[in-house]
């Protein structure tokens, strides 16, 4: 049936523009996906991938341009069933309903009905089950159609979603970060399925952060950067270096030997030699977590040192930060502060031991919106203030205690009595930071502290962490934003919950870290590998780090 369409793109984006307020998310995207081919779509966070996926799957309407399926214009926005018949998406996070059976999930939203009066057309259960069984068998999926999805593994749930996609009759499949939650062996099996699908004429758009997967499975690769398609080429003709360069963008050429000097090729060994006397020691930490799993992660932070832990958002950086702060439990391993083990998963104990915590999700964990700035800032020192006030926490005493730090961080508010819910996002973040710093912690754990704040606030927040380090505190900065680690002394890169690379800050006037090597490491180009080989390869690369970034910081 696809033979008739050969030569015509299964799905085609024509001149797509999309803006969200002042943000120009997509600037004229032309993209064609041929039947039976697998196209890899890559780009850094914010490049426009999600917007493009939403438009291709009919969830968002483009401002200009359009989508065509097999040469015909796409259904109108909102015609969900018509879109589903043409293109199906398998999302990064499972979209199966756990309490329904496999068969019901495969035909979710389009269960076959018997004939009957309008308004009363009972579900034809026998036909639904038989059809689901046939679809599963056709694709060699060994899943019981009558089993509830709750009992399925992550991999099996994904297969149910793929079965749903093919059962809807669509000949286009969008796979959005399909391997993010899969174990290593399951990734290989998924690739088998993808090859099976393309062999049968299905067009697959494969979105991934893991570039090595793209090279393995995709026929072509398209790179999005800043809302534009900057590169589109057969995978076989692309080098990794060229791909990374396209993702990162044009930057001034730099001296190669200088860049080499920035790489800490002996990082792991140097650390092992100097374990004694570290402020923070994380030993063989392992955990399962919705924020990303961890496997045997070890690192140290010295007093006065700022250590960045970077990685993609599901790589485990957030989990690591939360466990060190005591906000989550580890399944194995230990967190030692000044040689003493912290109680696992006990935030209150960690606070008293001297760990300040700037959580990832401010709204969820950073502050109590109904309460005043003063009260939020002093929340971590309420025990000390109460002792000083002989058991009484007077509102004025709270304000006096909060004022210096709120002033230093220039929290903009009518007064310290103002409820935090009324502040702007940046000011709320400052309150969260002040709350962490007011106890004068020995160690500050900051998880993505600059997300969603403007550039001025960003500098201020990073400056506050640097100031804490200068006072002798250790700083553990867990983030997915490479701009955050500019002040760090060392950087540990996590990929899929394992340490993939370690970098040490370069001396001299150049950029502190080689961004390209960092990006390559976080995108999994050199990982996961055993730690002995875990250094990023100092390959010949045409470009160096972006120096303009620091100019922007000053502006």
């Amino acid at each position, binding site marked *: 049936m696809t033979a008739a369409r050969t030569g015509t793109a299964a799905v085609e984006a024509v001149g797509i523009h999309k803006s969200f307020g*002042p*943000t120009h998310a997509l600037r004229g995207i032309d993209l064609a996906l041929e039947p039976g081919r697998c196209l890899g779509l890559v780009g*850094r966070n*914010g*490049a426009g991938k999600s917007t493009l996926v939403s438009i291709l799957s009919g969830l968002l309407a483009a401002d200009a341009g359009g989508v065509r399926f097999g040469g015909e214009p796409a259904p109108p926005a909102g015609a969900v069933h018509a879109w589903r018949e043409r293109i199906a998406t398998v999302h990064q996070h499972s979209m199966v309903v756990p309490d329904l059976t496999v068969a019901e999930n495969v035909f979710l939203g389009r269960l076959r009905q018997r004939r009957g009066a309008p308004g009363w057309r009972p579900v034809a259960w026998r036909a639904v089950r038989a059809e689901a069984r046939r679809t599963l068998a056709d694709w060699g999926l060994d899943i019981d159609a009558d089993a509830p999805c709750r009992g399925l593994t992550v991999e099996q749930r994904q297969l149910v979603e793929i079965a749903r996609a093919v059962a809807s009759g669509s000949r286009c499949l969008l796979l959005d970060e399909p391997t993010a939650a899969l174990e290593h062996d399951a990734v290989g099996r998924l690739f088998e399925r993808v090859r099976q699908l393309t062999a049968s004429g299905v067009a697959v758009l494969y979105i991934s952060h893991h570039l090595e997967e793209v090279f393995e499975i995709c026929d072509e690769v398209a790179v999005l*950067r*800043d809302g534009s398609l900057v590169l589109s080429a057969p995978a076989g003709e692309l080098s990794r270096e060229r791909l990374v360069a396209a993702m*990162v*963008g*044009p*930057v001034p050429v730099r001296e190669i030997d200088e860049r080499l000097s920035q790489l800490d090729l002996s990082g792991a060994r140097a650390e092992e030699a100097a374990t004694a006397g570290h402020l923070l020691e994380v030993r063989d930490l392992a955990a399962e977590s919705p924020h990303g799993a961890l496997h045997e992660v070890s690192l140290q932070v010295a007093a006065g040192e700022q250590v960045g832990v970077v990685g993609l958002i599901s790589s485990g950086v957030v989990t690591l930060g939360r466990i060190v*702060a005591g*906000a989550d439990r580890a399944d194995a391993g230990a967190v030692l502060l000044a040689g003493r083990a912290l109680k696992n998963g006990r*935030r*209150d104990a*960690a*606070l*008293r031991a001297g760990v300040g*915590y700037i*959580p990832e999700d401010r709204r*969820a*964990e*950073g*502050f*109590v*919106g*109904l*309460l*005043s700035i003063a*009260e939020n800032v002093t*929340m971590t020192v*309420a*025990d000390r*203030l*109460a002792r000083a006030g002989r058991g009484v*926490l*007077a*509102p004025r005493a709270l304000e006096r205690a909060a004022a210096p730090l709120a002033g230093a961080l220039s929290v903009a*508010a*009518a*007064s310290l*009595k*103002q*409820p935090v819910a*009324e*502040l*702007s996002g940046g000011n709320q973040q400052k309150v969260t930071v002040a*709350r962490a710093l007011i106890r004068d912690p020995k160690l500050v754990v900051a998880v993505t502290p600059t997300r969603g704040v*403007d*550039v*001025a*606030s960003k500098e201020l927040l990073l400056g506050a962490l640097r100031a804490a380090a200068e006072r002798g505190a250790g700083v553990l900065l867990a983030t997915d934003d490479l*701009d955050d680690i500019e002040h760090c002394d060392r950087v540990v890169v996590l990929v899929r919950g394992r340490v993939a690379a370690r970098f040490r800050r370069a001396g001299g006037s150049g950029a502190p870290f080689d*961004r390209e090597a960092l990006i390559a490491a976080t995108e999994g180009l050199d990982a996961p590998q055993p730690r002995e080989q875990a250094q990023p390869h100092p390959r010949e690369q045409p470009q160096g780090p*972006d120096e*303009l*970034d620091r100019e*922007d*910081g000053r*502006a």
Partner: protein
Amino acid sequence: MSETKSEHRADSASGAAAIPGDRGGPANSNDPGGPSGPGGLFARIGARTAQRSPAAVSWFRQAALLPVLVVILVVGALQSSAFFTVNNLVSGVGQQVSALGVTVVGESLILLIGGMDLSLESTYGLAPMIAAWLIVPKLAFGSGAMLSPYLGILILLAIGAAVGLVNGLLIVKVRLNGFIVTLGMTVLLAGVQNGVVHGQSPYELPSAFSYLGNAFVGQVPVSLLVAGAIFVLTGVFLRYHRVGRSIYAIGGNPEAARAAGIKVDRVKIGVYVAGSVFAALGGLMEAGKVSSVTVQQGYQEGIIFTVFAAAVIGGVSLRGGRGGMVGAASGVILLGLVQNVIDLAQVSNYWQLAISGTVILFALALARVVGGEASAD
């Protein structure tokens, strides 16, 4: 990195523009005051409350019932010459609302941490029942143990604490749903209350046991003094004590409280214990007032609805983190006055419930209008 670069530029432009404005005051300082037209008045009231400092807002919200109280006082005075007397308002209404009031303090604390406890009404009946059963003679439907009344009061408080502890552990540690746990508990406790005395009502309570409920200092009931003291002390505790403040933090955002190092679980369990102890104490007042513990006391009277109504009318949010003792007290006083007016007006017994219900709904709506969006939710 042209991508990040352009983001920075856009950000710094908007950031530079935003900062001076930010320093000028709160985001809503130049809010024109809501739209005009139908509903404009209410919107304007809401906007105005939003501009007050939090302390002023909370006083404003808590005082939202004052106009209603004034209306009821006027209606009561017009209705009956006996209404506006010390004998009626202080001795009568005062004694009547004390037991309810102490229980409302308990429920308010639990609501403030974002919980709810339906079993307070059964604790209110069971704790004095067991205590009375242990201290009165067999002829007065006691167990025959004839314990000292003081020991009886200790047992009563201990029963309250034990019920609260079990509720707290089941809800906080076992992570069961608070509504269902306390629903099951309230039925269980009411069953025990009935079963232990085979449906009889122990009487002849020793004076030490009934003192709290029926003694007077001059014309002022002791129960009113004690209830008033509990309201004031709890209010001060909530406002000035570290644990009191952490109750608001937990109710407002439990995850933020946990991240700030507050021992969320411990405080929550403590609040469930305190709430049940207050309910037991309220039950002791009620028992003393009528000199007996009836099987109906608590669960079968359905007092939990009045308890919730008083707290919520008084501005204690069912979603946690909002409200205080001034509001809770005014809710209790309001419901007490309404009952008193209905009694004095000699309304037919058959219609009393309907009138109470109407008044509760009316008071809720009025509190919402006067107190703005956030009240009475």
